[in-house]
Structure formats: structure tokens, C-alpha cells
């Protein structure tokens, strides 16, 4: 493997100084479970890595109505947290099927969204929950709504000196139900399609609908044609079938090593239909 220097700053200020000093060919590293593989595959060849693992201000979660998750919080802690399970069940479901236990013991949500794979398991849940990503750099902090965060495969709206510091999830109102489903060839596989649905129901009527799908477009995608179909309507079987058809039409999958365009198109429709049915059942 290419040699790189490895720095372990204790705080953000030090991290930004190191990035400035090291220049363009230095990369920030979180859990490393995506980045180190990319280095081994020679997809990137940094001269230096700046580890975020010792920066305590990036860890942990807070709840004050909204939920704030530190970018360096470990997935293993997220999947075991009762507060998160209640407030963001779709996100916790996604974390539970992300990779495998060894990866979840070191990997982080900040890393997952910064890596910006179209298949990122955290993305569909964060999209349907209208999350906001806080990023910071030497120039200061700013907020980026999650639907503006992903620009393309492996590309985010962050500038190279910036990192994700926190992810904020707004409190969901009474009547909310959400679900996440992932399709992979085997356990621990990268998704060939993943889907999240959030519904706010008033009796049988859907007041608000959010649907997102990953691995079926250059970025994780909100499916607006499905959302428009369901908002204001009573959710019944014909409607969920139509929702699945619209989803299949709206996604933009490709054929790659994991699956074909045709299969992804078909299965994303099925997953959307099932996720809507599950979300309705879980309305609190």
C-alpha cells in the first residue's frame, strides 16, 4: 500500500491546520472502512491522513426536541441506543443492516455520507426525515440540507477542507410512521437498492409523505412522484401498487457488478410499496 503520514489531532482547530499544512493530497479519515479500501484499490492515493477519531466534540448524540448526532458517533452505539430507536427507527434499521459488526464497531454516519456512495445506507432515512448536515472548515460552520448534500457518486457539496460535524434530525410529529428496506445479494452486501419512507398520518389520510431510494441513481434520490401521489390521500392497496409503479419509473438505475438496471428498477418499486405498508403499520 502507498505510504501515507497519519495525524491524530485532538480538536477541530488542529485538524484544519493539519489539512491546510498538508494540502490537497491529505484526506480526513473517520472509521476508515471506505477510505482505506479505496487507498488499497488505488482509487485515491493521499500523502497524509488526518484522523478524526480523537475529536470528542464530534461524538455522541443529544436530544432537545430535535435529535443531533455527532458525525463520529459509532454505528454500533447508534444501533444500541433506545432514544434513537424510538425517534428515528428508519435510521436505526439502516444502521443495523449496514456492512457487518466489525465495520459497525468503527464506522460512522459522518464517514458514510461523506463517502457519498449512491448506495449509502444512512442516506434514504436521513432524506425522508429532512435532516440537516452541519459541516465545518477553517472558515467556519454552515448547514446543508441533506437533499442538497449529495452531488454525484462520491461527491458532496463540501469543500475539501470541510468535514461533517453533526447531523440534525427534526422532531417528528404525532402520527408519524417510517420504515427502511434494503436489498442486497447477501448479508453485509452493499445495497443494490435501498428505500426509506416516512408518513405522517391523520386517521387514514396521509398528510405528509417522504420517499427516498438509494443505489438506483447517481445520488440517493427523493421520489417526488410517489410523494405527490400519496399526500392527501387515503392509503389503500391500489394506491401502494401505483406508488411502486411510479417509483420504478422515477429511479435511474444502472447495471453494475451487483445487479442489473432492470432488476433494480423492479425491486425498488417493490421495496417502496412494502416500505409504505410498513410505515403505515408503525404510525404512533
Amino acid at each position, binding site marked *: 500500500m502507498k505510504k501515507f503520514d497519519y495525524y*491524530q489531532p485532538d480538536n477541530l482547530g488542529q485538524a484544519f491546520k493539519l489539512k491546510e499544512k498538508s494540502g490537497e493530497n491529505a484526506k480526513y479519515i473517520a472509521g476508515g472502512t471506505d477510505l482505506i479500501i479505496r487507498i488499497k484499490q488505488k482509487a485515491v492515493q493521499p500523502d497524509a491522513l488526518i484522523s478524526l477519531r480523537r475529536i470528542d466534540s464530534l461524538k455522541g448524540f443529544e436530544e432537545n426536541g430535535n435529535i443531533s448526532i455527532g458525525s463520529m458517533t459509532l454505528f454500533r452505539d447508534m444501533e444500541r441506543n433506545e432514544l434513537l430507536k424510538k425517534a428515528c427507527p428508519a435510521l436505526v434499521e439502516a444502521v443495523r443492516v449496514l456492512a*457487518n459488526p466489525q465495520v459497525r464497531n468503527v464506522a460512522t454516519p459522518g464517514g458514510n455520507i461523506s463517502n457519498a456512495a449512491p448506495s449509502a445506507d444512512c442516506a434514504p432515512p436521513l432524506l425522508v426525515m429532512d435532516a440537516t448536515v452541519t459541516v465545518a472548515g477553517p472558515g467556519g460552520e454552515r448547514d446543508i440540507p441533506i437533499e442538497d448534500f449529495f452531488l454525484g457518486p462520491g461527491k458532496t457539496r463540501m469543500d475539501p477542507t470541510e468535514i461533517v460535524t453533526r447531523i440534525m434530525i427534526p422532531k417528528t410529529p404525532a402520527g408519524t410512521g417510517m420504515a427502511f428496506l434494503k436489498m442486497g445479494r447477501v448479508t453485509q452486501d452493499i445495497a443494490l437498492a435501498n428505500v426509506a419512507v416516512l408518513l405522517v398520518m391523520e386517521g387514514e389520510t396521509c398528510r405528509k409523505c417522504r420517499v427516498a431510494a438509494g443505489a438506483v441513481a447517481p445520488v440517493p434520490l427523493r421520489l417526488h412522484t410517489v410523494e405527490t401521489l400519496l399526500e392527501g390521500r387515503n392509503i389503500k392497496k391500489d394506491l401502494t401498487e401505483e406508488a411502486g409503479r411510479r417509483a420504478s419509473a422515477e429511479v435511474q438505475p444502472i447495471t453494475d457488478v451487483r445487479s442489473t438496471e432492470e432488476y433494480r428498477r423492479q425491486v425498488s418499486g417493490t421495496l417502496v410499496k412494502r416500505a409504505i405498508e410498513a410505515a403505515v403499520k408503525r404510525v404512533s
Partner: protein
Amino acid sequence: MKKEIHFRLNGYEVAAEVESHKMLLNVLREQFHLTGTKEGCGQGECGACTVLVDGLNVDSCLYPAFEVEGKSVTTIEGLVGEGNVLHPIQKAFVEGGGIQCGFCTPGMIMSAKALLDETPDPDEAEIKRGISGNLCRCTGYVQIIESIEKAKEFVQAESADETD
């Protein structure tokens, strides 16, 4: 760049001068000659390189060596007790037929240990989940799962003995 790192390895305080691009797997095998931990895929999917860091099972092929500073690492060699007595989990794998070629075994056992340390009485689904990051090309997993069920009992029996 090089740095001397200090950490606890299988119960002993150790130090090693390590290059910044090395992963924990390299350091364990090449510098400490603990070759029980294997390299399979090098990508964090097969789990042959699984070790415990502060009690949690991790893939050492993707774990930067510098990050182990001040932490406690346990490899398969660390499970063997005084007088070369097998750990109850190792004994369970031997008796349960959970080993064929043995290549996945060290990683499989480390994941089993992490699972049983957190969940002393896992059901079958939890066992499968606990080893979902460890691939075996030989056994078809059935006897591995049975060995972990057996290991549950052996571990509980051993801690019962200790409290007597």
C-alpha cells in the same frame, strides 16, 4: 512517518515502532509474529483478520496501527489460558466440529467472543448476526453455529465455577 506506539496486547503492555501507513494486521503478524490472525480479503468483508480492540471485534486489515495507542488488543493467541489450556470457546469449536481448514477460525472465534461477552445467551438469529462479518468457505456454517451454542454453555459453566 514512524512513531512508537504503546498498547496492551493479550494482557501485556507492549511498545513497537510502527510506520504510519501500516494497518494493525501487519503490525500483529510482522512485528509481533502473532500469525494466528489471518489476511483474507483485506477489505473488511471476510473477517479472517478479526481481533478485539477494547473488547470490540474489528477488522485489523482496515485498522490503522497508530489508532491502537493506549488501547487493549486481544488476538486468538490471547485466548489460550495458562498452561496452554484452551479457552471455552476454542474448546467448543474443537468439540463441535466447527473447524475444517481452520483459516476462518481465529476470526470466527474472536467474533464469537465479542458476541458472548455482550450477549451471554444469544439465540440462533443473534449468533448469525454476530458472525455475519466472518466468512467460511468450508463448513457451511452449521457446525460453527452449533459450536457457538456449545460455547455459550462452556463459558457459563466456567464463570459458574469461578464464583463457587
